[in-house]
């Protein structure tokens, strides 16, 4: 065998603490090595060129590159080797950057370790065999989880691109947080007016299958061939018959149910349609409050329904769908301000969240767009906005910036002055983060044109003025600091709006486990690379869109949704995908059919095949196997080997290392 070795300097990343020339010189002494050199940047065009030229000129059978992590450039070098006519698996990489140069400054010992790693790579390469990828069919369908603005955008883009879309939404209607907003910054255009037509498109698109009141129970399979199990919770209404006329809502006697679409500031009925623009516009019963389910009485809705759609005996339905790719677009939830005792901890009715205020501002909201204090329905004249409630706050374990609160606070302050011209709006802020297009100008407009008083400081306490000032007082005292003046300030407010920060959607970590993707300490899904792979995850075929990855405003969510759709369209534009040949292989002669591998495989990639004589043998489903190697170490007779990581290859590496140990210690 003829092996070539290239030791990379990686500029100064490796060369500063490793003697690369010495490593190359040592490599020349290893068995089968006919050529070894060092290079400033092995991954550069000249570096790859040298590799290709040397393979051709010296008729090499395999190449070792000692450089960075395989996660970084293994694919790069495999392609280079392939261009020169070798099989891409006749290549080994020794990581002398992350595993050597970056972790120690001891040049002598670093060089020794780098030589050891190269020796191991050479020894493994001597046992490498050419491997060939197989190709498999893909499902040209995509699953999108969550139908807020990101999920809607991704669904429409994928459907327009010719893919069938399975759109799953937990709530009864699609629309997400955006459907609750009144206006959007920085243009102050009506939120549901721009979202509504997109929602209708989703409802009508022939390529989109919509599952609302549904959740993903399980996802199995792999890129190109996922199988998803979806639980459709029953609305106790036959949605094929239901016309959304609303007759049942008018007659339902349970009228004290907090309305979740209105963030609990109004009540609704036990059978309900979430909002006028809901898609699908169908009634659903909440069995936790419905008198028929809680007390076994009533049944009014069934009597009044002109379409005879109500059916109390309906059961949850479980459906399975086959898809080729998945987009997670599960969005966000809001910080629960009851954790903040200084703002009343939810005890004062006139301290409300920004989203509750948004519903109040909305013409289709419970107050028809009139701003009213929840306590007495009066029109507030002094409204105080407090930023960063549950954002940038380590004491409540929310150290991150929620990204969009500065902007919606400015918008709400503008709308306050718009709705009630003789009102005063105050904003307590720490920093104003207005980095989007037209955002800074928007905040300045709030300050200059709408005379919103911004106060640089935080609020430490809110307490009711009443009973100190008599029943007519009924105001809240907001005590904060103006850090620019260095004084305490107090405002007697009629209404306090808390700019609550964003949290990951509840249940997000559990979904991430099902999708086998990573998530951070706060439940936000992790992208594959923060800069260069922002919509991919570490599970091939699963993509991210919107605020499930990090708090995002509407433009950013829509942009990421279209990006994810583009990625899915590119992936599924191919009729066949290539599988990784680094998978488990069974030697049928050795297999004793014990079935341990089948039980231990986390991907269900091994099944037992029965021979004609009744004996059993393990069999690997090549497209399902992920190459993790668990079966290989479980097998009691070493009948399963992981291609490219066989026992002989790994032992060759271990032997190489032990030989060095024996030589240097003399023991």
């Amino acid at each position: 065998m003829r092996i070539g070795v290239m030791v990379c300097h990686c500029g100064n990343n490796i060369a500063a603490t490793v003697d690369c020339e010495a490593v190359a010189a040592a490599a020349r002494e290893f068995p089968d090595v006919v050529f070894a050199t060092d290079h400033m940047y092995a991954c550069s065009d000249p570096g790859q060129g040298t590799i290709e030229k040397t393979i051709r000129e010296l008729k090499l059978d395999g190449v070792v590159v000692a450089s960075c992590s395989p996660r970084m450039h293994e694919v790069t070098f495999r392609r280079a080797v392939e261009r020169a006519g070798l099989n891409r698996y006749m290549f080994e990489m020794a990581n002398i950057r992350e595993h050597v140069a970056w972790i120690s400054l001891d040049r002598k010992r670093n060089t020794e370790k780098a030589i050891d790693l190269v020796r191991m790579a050479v020894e493994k390469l001597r046992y490498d065999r050419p491997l060939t990828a197989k190709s498999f069919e893909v499902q040209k369908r995509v699953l999108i989880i969550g139908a807020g603005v990101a999920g809607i955008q991704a669904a429409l883009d994928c459907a327009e691109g010719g893919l069938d879309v399975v759109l799953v939404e937990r709530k009864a209607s699609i629309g997400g947080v955006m459907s609750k907003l009144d206006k959007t910054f920085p243009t102050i255009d009506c939120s549901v007016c721009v979202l509504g037509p997109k929602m209708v498109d989703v409802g009508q698109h022939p390529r989109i299958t919509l599952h609302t009141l549904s959740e993903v129970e399980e996802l199995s399979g792999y890129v190109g061939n996922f199988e998803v199990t979806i639980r459709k919770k029953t609305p106790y209404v036959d949605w094929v018959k239901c016309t959304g006329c609303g007759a049942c809502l008018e007659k339902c006697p349970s009228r004290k149910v907090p309305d979740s679409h209105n963030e609990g500031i109004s009540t609704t009925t036990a059978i309900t349609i979430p909002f006028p623009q809901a898609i699908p516009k169908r009634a659903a019963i909440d069995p936790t409050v419905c008198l028929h389910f809680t007390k076994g009485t009533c049944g009014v809705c069934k009597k009044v329904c002109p379409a005879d759609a109500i059916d109390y005996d309906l059961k949850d339905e479980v459906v399975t769908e086959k898809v080729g790719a998945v987009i997670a677009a599960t969005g966000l939830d809001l910080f629960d301000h009851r954790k903040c005792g200084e703002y009343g901890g939810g005890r004062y009715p006139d301290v409300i969240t920004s989203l509750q205020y948004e519903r109040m501002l909305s013409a289709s909201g419970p107050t028809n767009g009139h701003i009213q204090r929840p306590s007495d329905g009066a029109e507030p004249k002094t409204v105080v906005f407090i930023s960063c409630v549950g954002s940038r706050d380590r004491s409540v374990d929310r150290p991150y910036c929620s990204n969009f609160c500065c902007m919606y606070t400015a918008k709400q302050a503008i709308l306050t002055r718009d709705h009630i011209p003789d009102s005063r709006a105050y904003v307590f802020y720490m920093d104003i983060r207005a980095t989007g297009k037209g955002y800074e100008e928007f905040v300045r407009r709030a300050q200059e044109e709408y005379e919103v008083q911004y106060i640089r400081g935080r609020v430490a306490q809110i307490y009711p003025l009443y009973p100190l000032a008599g029943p007519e007082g009924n105001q809240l005292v907001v005590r904060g600091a103006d850090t620019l003046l260095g004084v305490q300030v107090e405002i007697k407010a009629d209404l306090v709006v808390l700019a609550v920060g964003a949290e990951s959607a509840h249940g997000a970590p559990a979904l991430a486990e099902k999708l086998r993707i990573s998530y951070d300490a706060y439940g936000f899904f992790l992208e594959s690379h923060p800069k260069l792979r922002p919509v991919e995850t570490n599970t091939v075929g699963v993509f991210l869109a919107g605020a499930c990855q990090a708090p995002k405003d509407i433009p950013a969510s829509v942009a990421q949704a279209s990006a994810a759709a583009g990625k899915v369209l590119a992936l599924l534009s191919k009729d066949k995908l290539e599988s990784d040949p680094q998978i488990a292989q069974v030697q049928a002669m050795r297999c004793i059919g014990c079935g341990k591998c089948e039980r231990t495989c986390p991907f269900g990639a091994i099944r037992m095949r029965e021979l004609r004589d009744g004996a059993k043998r393990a069999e690997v489903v090549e497209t399902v196997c992920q190459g993790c190697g668990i079966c290989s170490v479980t097998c009691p007779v070493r009948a399963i080997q992981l291609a490219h990581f066989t026992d002989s290859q790994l032992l060759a590496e271990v032997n190489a290392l032990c030989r060095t140990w024996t030589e240097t210690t003399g023991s």
Partner: protein
Amino acid sequence: MHIPTPPLDLEHARDASFQAAVASESGQCLASCYQCGMCTAGCAYTPDYDVPVHQVMRLVQLGLREQVLSCRAIWLCASCQACTTRCPNNIDVARVMDVLRHMARRAGHAPEANVKTFADSFLASVARHGRVFEAGLAAVFAIKSGRPMQDAGLGLPMLTRGKLALIPHEPTGNGKAEVAAIFARFNRFADQGAGRHSHDDVQRSGTPKASANTPKARSDTAKDSAPTTEDGQ
């Protein structure tokens, strides 16, 4: 009259070792303060402070040692811990104020002399009797603070209601000795501590400012962070 303030030459004015000393003595990461003003907003004494709490933190961040150690705010702090409770960065602000008070003592600063005098008198009383002797403390503090009659009006009503004893009510059994042992241990620690890091403070500060108000002028040496033992009985 307006006194023009020249621009602060940060490169020369700041004392990085001061910031490090406050950080290590308090165990708090001062760099994590982002000046939101929550401490000032919630502080009961902000109206009385010469420097609001968040600016005390800012002065420490910038290492402006003399300005911090000579301010009145650190002596007026009641250690109610509202700032600590509410700080969004989990900084124990009250602890930082406490550390600054100790540093100011060692540096000979005590702009609120009465606060310091009271603390000294209180501890001296405890050291001597094993528990505070209120009547003695009141008398000593009245004399030392230069306002001998300030609490005199309260004496008779408290005596008649049995709220004040004229004889020290010392702990029984081993109690007094155990308290004395605590003071001895603290004094030993303070001596070592002074030897380790406070000579600089003493030398730089020169004559203690607070001594002008105290009849016995032996306060404000490095050792003085430990309680004195005479209580003027």
